[in-house]
């Protein structure tokens, strides 16, 4: 057994060359790729860490913003409650005022209706009283009543101013027919009261019930039960 030194040298050279070739074409490219992947993974991890930090910061900001929202919500609720209370108070006050106004209106309307009813009843009572009085007065027709009314008429004529007494024609109305003699007497006495001699005509108006009324172009003296009752009724209906 002997050593072939040439083969030994060639094999050493071959292995050295193989070391270089594999280092050039295998070990270094693959190791570089592993290193690149490790660096990429570390970059990704660093990026993920940065994003995680950013996400945490954003979450904290959102939490803070939410807390602000809650505070703002509380403030808005308090403000809304105050506004609602104020609105409720205002509504209650307005409702109370409106109710008071309605109550006053109703009371006024009731008072008006009561007054109208009282007026109606008063008028009705007045008319009823006048009717009763008219029926009673109708039973008092007679010479004495006629004479009294004539005296009242003359008294009224004498109370007239002198200018008013100067009339050319007059009309005397009575409830019942007056006899010719009575007419002459009445004409004479009226003329004397007037201080003139107007032309006097007599008419009959049963509505007067009793009495004498003197009517001229510018003169009218109501002197009858009817006129008195009308005045009474007017006083009764307008009383109060």
């Amino acid at each position, binding site marked *: 057994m002997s050593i072939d030194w040439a083969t030994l040298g060639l094999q050493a050279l071959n292995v050295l060359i193989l070391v270089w070739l*594999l280092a050039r074409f295998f070990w270094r490219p693959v190791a570089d790729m592993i290193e690149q992947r490790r660096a990429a993974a570390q970059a990704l991890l660093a990026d993920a860490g940065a994003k995680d930090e950013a996400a945490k910061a954003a979450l904290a900001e959102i939490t803070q913003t939410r807390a602000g929202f809650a505070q703002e919500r509380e403030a808005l609720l308090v403000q809304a409650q105050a506004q609602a209370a104020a609105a409720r108070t205002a509504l209650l006050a307005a409702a109370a005022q409106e109710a008071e106004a309605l109550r006053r209106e109703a009371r006024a309307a009731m008072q008006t209706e009561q007054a109208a009813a009282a007026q109606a009843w008063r008028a009705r009572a007045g008319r009823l009283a006048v009717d009763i009085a008219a029926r009673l007065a109708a039973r008092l027709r007679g010479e004495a009543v006629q004479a009294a009314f004539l005296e009242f008429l003359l008294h009224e004529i004498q109370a007239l101013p002198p200018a008013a007494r100067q009339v050319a024609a007059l009309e005397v109305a009575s409830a019942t027919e007056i006899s010719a003699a009575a007419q002459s007497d009445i004409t004479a006495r009226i003329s004397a009261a007037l201080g003139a001699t107007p032309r006097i005509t007599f008419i009959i108006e049963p509505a007067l019930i009793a009495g004498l009324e003197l009517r001229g172009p510018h003169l009218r003296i109501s002197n009858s039960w009817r006129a008195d009752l009308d005045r009474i009724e007017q006083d009764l209906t307008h009383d109060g």
Partner: protein
Amino acid sequence: MISPLSNPPLFHLGPLPVTQPVVATWGIMLLLAGGGAMLTRRLQLIPGRTQAALELIVDTVDSQIRGTMRVEPGPYRAFIGTLFVFIFVANWSSLLPGVEPPTAHLETDAALAFLVFLAVIWFGVRAGGVRGYLASFAFPSPTMIPLNFIETLTRTFSLLVRLFGNVMSGVFVIGIVLSLAGLLIPIPLMALDLLTGAVQAYIFAVLAMVFIAGAVAEAKPETPSTKASP
């Protein structure tokens, strides 16, 4: 009868005789370098199955270097990895009919052991300089210098003998059994030879790492060293 240990030249390149182990080594070189270049042409950040397998090989070599040498694997990866891959492929080349493993010849194993010897010196000098490397022979005391020097030679010789003996004996046993028993009988022995080849490749690479790590650690003045032994 021609001795199985004889190594007749196949042809000559000028004055140099080219023997069968050299030719087989060239074939292995072509296979490994060509295959490596072809497989690493299109490496991508997201690996496919082939690239993942290649990265697994590199990562395994790196982890072995880290675990054994306690250093970053970058400067040592190519040498240690190539030693392992070459010896592994050379040992397993006996599967091919007519091919005799280059490691079954003394010259190839001697060349590998010699390269480890040179690598120990190279990496030791690079780590601590010539003075640092030479000073490592005086560890733990100057009286150990002759022993340490002899150890450096003998451990290199042990590398050579271990690899040569295991591979050559496997080839011999298979050849003898094949000549005596028949076609299928040597198959279990061939399987055992494959296992032996893989183990020997691993042992050779690990011992190379241990020797280099010892030289590097002892050459560094500030680093507490641990004496490596084969």
